[in-house]
């Protein structure tokens, strides 16, 4: 067993923080600022970054715990974390229900009679709320936390295997992914359909992140420095960019040869299409090549806002989901002018940074001995930063 490295890689916090901002922006529908987010320029989006880095940091924190305190204790910590995320999810759900109930009571328009049917579930809250607590009923944009919960539940045995036979763990994960495609595994949702983020698919990226954290990245480092690989990654990103442009300028679609279209479409987000994984990997290769671990910029003040958000990702994520509800609410109730959209987007990110900074300050104050916890609690292990 190689010991888990102890130094936190600030790049993870930085890119997770940026991913959280992008998720916030993408979750506000018809937001003009969405044009800056990466999903418009290729196949993958911020979700891949978030899941990969979450896997990486989970292995980083719980891997150490498993080596020092054993399987049972570290698994208990992982499950405690899953429980915290579940509570956060239910809290968001309550806010969402309040918003929906308000719209149901105040909005009426003969043009949208059909669309208002989406509020019908309020007529039988007994079933809906129960299904929501079972993670089967998931309103729009509330799919990531349930995915995260399932990934954590599956994580202790995977982590155990990763610490002993990392390659075998990765092969197991890839096998589950392949079997998912073959047998069309997914988890049923309520009232129909299946999970928007198929856990059998997305676990691959989570486990791959964990594998990288536990020495995989070091094994790959020779490859990651290869110019050929970087060239391939750039070529693939350009290809994805060209395809993405045909989504916005349909006239360009005639330049996509039919066999290419037939081969790539549909690009499946639910089941984490291979094209999406490759796009994420290409982005990762380029990032690792141009932003080394000891890059001085990482400690500069410019990146501090993103890093602090990435360090408190659960809180920032939940806040972002809430702020995107609220932002869209302002668009429809007050104004949807472009200036409002920009202001709401900037204000939302500013609030995320402010709250993350507050949490950071509080944790430090607690660590310095102001808190009731005995020093033995070792906040770094508590899983608070996963």
């Amino acid at each position: 067993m190689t010991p888990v490295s102890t130094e936190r890689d600030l790049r993870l916090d930085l890119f997770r923080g940026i991913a959280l901002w992008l998720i916030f922006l993408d979750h506000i529908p018809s937001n003009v600022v969405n044009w800056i987010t990466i999903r418009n320029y290729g196949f993958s989006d911020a979700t891949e970054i978030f899941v990969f880095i979450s896997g990486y940091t989970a292995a980083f924190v719980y891997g150490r715990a498993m080596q020092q305190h054993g399987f049972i204790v570290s698994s208990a910590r992982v499950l405690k974390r899953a429980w915290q995320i579940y509570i956060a999810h239910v809290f968001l759900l309550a806010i969402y229900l309040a918003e929906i109930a308000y719209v149901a009571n105040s909005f009426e328009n003969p043009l949208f009679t059909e669309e208002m049917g989406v509020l019908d579930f309020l007529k039988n809250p007994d079933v809906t709320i129960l299904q929501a607590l079972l993670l089967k009923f998931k309103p729009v944009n509330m799919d990531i936390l349930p995915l995260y919960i399932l990934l954590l539940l599956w994580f202790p045995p995977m982590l155990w295997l990763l610490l002993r036979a990392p390659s075998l763990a990765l092969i197991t994960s890839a096998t589950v992914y392949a079997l998912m495609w073959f047998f069309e595994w997914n988890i049923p949702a309520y009232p129909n359909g299946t999970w928007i983020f198929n856990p059998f698919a997305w676990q691959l990226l989570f486990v791959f992140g964990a594998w990288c954290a536990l020495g995989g990245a070091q094994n790959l480092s020779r490859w990651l420095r290869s110019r050929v690989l970087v060239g391939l990654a750039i070529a693939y990103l350009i290809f994805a960019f060209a395809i993405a442009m045909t989504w916005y300028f349909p006239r360009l679609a005639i330049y996509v040869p039919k066999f290419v279209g037939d081969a790539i479409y549909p690009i499946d987000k639910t089941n984490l299409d291979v094209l999406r994984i490759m796009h994420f990997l290409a982005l990762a290769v380029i990032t690792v090549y141009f932003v080394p671990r000891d890059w001085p910029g990482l400690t500069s003040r410019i990146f501090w806002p993103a890093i602090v958000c990435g360090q408190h990702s659960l809180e920032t994520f939940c806040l972002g989901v809430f702020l995107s509800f609220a932002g869209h609410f302002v668009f429809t109730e007050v104004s949807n002018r472009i200036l409002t959209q920009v202001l709401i987007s900037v204000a939302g990110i500013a609030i995320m940074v402010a709250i993350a900074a507050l949490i950071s300050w509080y944790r430090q104050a607690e660590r310095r001995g102001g808190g009731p916890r005995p020093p033995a609690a070792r906040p770094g292990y508590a899983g608070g930063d996963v």
Partner: protein
Amino acid sequence: MRRRLLLLALLMLGAAPARAEHPAECRVAENLVEPNFRLPKVTRALAAKHLTILVMGAGSSQLPGPNGMANAYPIRLQKALAQQLPGVEVKVTTDIKSKRTAPEMIKALPAALAAAKPALLVWQTGTVDAMLGVDPDQFSQALDKGISTAHSTGADVVLINAQYSPRTESMIALGTYVEDMRWVALQQEVPLFDRFSIMKLWGELGTFDLSSATNKLDIAERVHDCIGRLLADLVIAAAKPEETPTNGSR
């Protein structure tokens, strides 16, 4: 000389596409109407001076109230076509029921096609599928199946996607379904009437206020009027016999 110029001008007017005089609010979205594939059965029907259209749709193809059917876009499509195609007998029949998904509609489709014997099926779908979270694969397969059913009975197809509804935008994830329809239309080489983008443009430019709470029908009727007119433009442009399509066809 002057008379000749006048004659020339008249000829040019005659040669120009017979674009109807739509209200300015409709014309705002004219560029989003893309007749990128041909409608050969409609071309033949126009030559025979007799065009029957079947509109199959769900709740967003009708309006509430006693005159709901007469005010909604299918009948406005019929009026606009009749106006622009003098001498052609235009008949629009409908099969519209709210809360229907694409897989549900293809079950009703064969009987509706057999009853109406249309030269064109206008198929509006996608909203209820998104609301109920119908599996996107099943949705695409239903679209494919519906289109081939219509083709096998000798009807062309135009697809209409979901409405843009700002208030429910954060509650209905239309994205996948709108994209799937675009992709299926391209693959099956049928024109797509991009109602979503058209209404979104209207909403963004403030042409129509789509997020106000009201129980009045005035805006809803004007929106349906424009949809009917623009849809008529699409049908006529895609059925024009001799011209090559404007773009997009392979």
